[in-house]
């Protein structure tokens, strides 16, 4: 719903976007905010009794990994939806499509993993929703900037050789975030 309404607003304002950079910026902004909205709730539901049930049931590593998988799938759905809507309503200026989809995949994955741990941290406090945004935005920016640069290059139709560095950086960032969450989450869980 969130995605559809924002894309529709963008469509009403621009009707058709000539410039590549505007298109890409809008797409990532929509994905970022829709994704944040979606995954803020991912830990809030577990603050009550369910929390203790899970606690007795399985290890914290299993929980954070499953949360990340769930968030990743959710955000991938969101970004796929927004990409399809963008293409339908605003046209598709991307030249190198396969590579762009890969960038979209990696970028969304990066956003979702950062959001998972941030919302886990924020769920331990009282003002959950605001804090998730405050905590996650600065550490998401590296991923986001790399993804935007890479999608610009794909949009211009450049090939694998030119985007390689950015894609590797995105993959590396993903890996770092996943490993860190895996190591650090048990300490959060214990409290």
């Amino acid at each position, binding site marked *: 719903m969130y995605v559809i309404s924002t894309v529709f607003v963008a469509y009403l304002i621009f009707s058709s976007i000539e410039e590549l950079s505007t298109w890409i910026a809008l797409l990532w902004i929509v994905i970022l905010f829709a994704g944040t909205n979606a995954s803020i709730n991912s830990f809030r539901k577990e603050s009550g009794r369910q929390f203790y049930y899970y606690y007795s049931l399985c290890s914290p590593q299993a929980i954070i990994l499953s949360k990340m998988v769930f968030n990743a799938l959710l955000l991938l759905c969101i970004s796929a939806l927004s990409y399809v809507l963008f293409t339908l309503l605003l046209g598709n200026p991307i030249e190198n499509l396969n590579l762009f989809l890969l960038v979209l995949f990696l970028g969304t994955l990066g956003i979702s993993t950062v959001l998972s741990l941030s919302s886990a941290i924020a769920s*331990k406090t009282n003002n959950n929703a605001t*804090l998730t945004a405050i905590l996650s935005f*600065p550490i998401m920016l590296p991923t986001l900037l790399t993804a935007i*640069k890479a999608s610009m290059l794909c949009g211009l139709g450049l090939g694998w050789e030119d985007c390689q560095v950015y894609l590797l950086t995105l993959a590396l960032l993903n890996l770092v975030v996943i490993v860190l969450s895996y190591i*650090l989450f048990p*300490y959060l869980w214990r409290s």
Partner: protein
Amino acid sequence: MRNWWKVAAIILLIYTVIGGFLVAVPKQVILYESIRNLYFHVPMWFSMIFLFLMSVVNSIKNLSSNELKYDIRAKELVNTGIIFGILGTITGSIWAKFTWGAWWVNDVKLNGSAITMLIYLAYVVLRGSLDDEQKRARIAAVYNIFAFVLLLVFIGILPRMTDSLHPGNGGNPGFNNYDLDNNMKLVFYPAVLAWILLGWWIASLKIRMSNLKQNSIE
């Protein structure tokens, strides 16, 4: 003598200020005398990174031992680091105004420093929203480690991939190249050491104050 490093910090700082303003510097187009800012602007960032690094070390110790004293250290190191970050931004901004003609430009390194500040302000906000001490210590430590590692990846990789006005990128030589002559090195390296020592000193004073406050509450 236990406090020899504080004496060393004072002597080195005096040396930095006197040497920084008086020792001859190479004449460079555009830069001219503003090159002396090198002794103040660059060490600010070095000290900031050093303080944040020490803070992360204390956060790791806190997670492994659950002792509150490490949490206090981590907190005050971050606070001191933020002061140095602000000073670094101000000196950099003044330098940019005189060499590039603007207070702020859209540039990888400048954005990196802005993101750094945002991350640590978020850390302060996170601490502010938690009341229970043990819980706050653990959660803040988790965020501190998480943010610092991502930050290292960010400032370690991204600036190397893009062009930049800032020295050290995109064809602009860094300060370790030919434009830093021996005279400048003689001042620059002690300056770095001096500012780091000063940062450490301020942080240790703040840590002692926090500890005293903590004790008086108990």
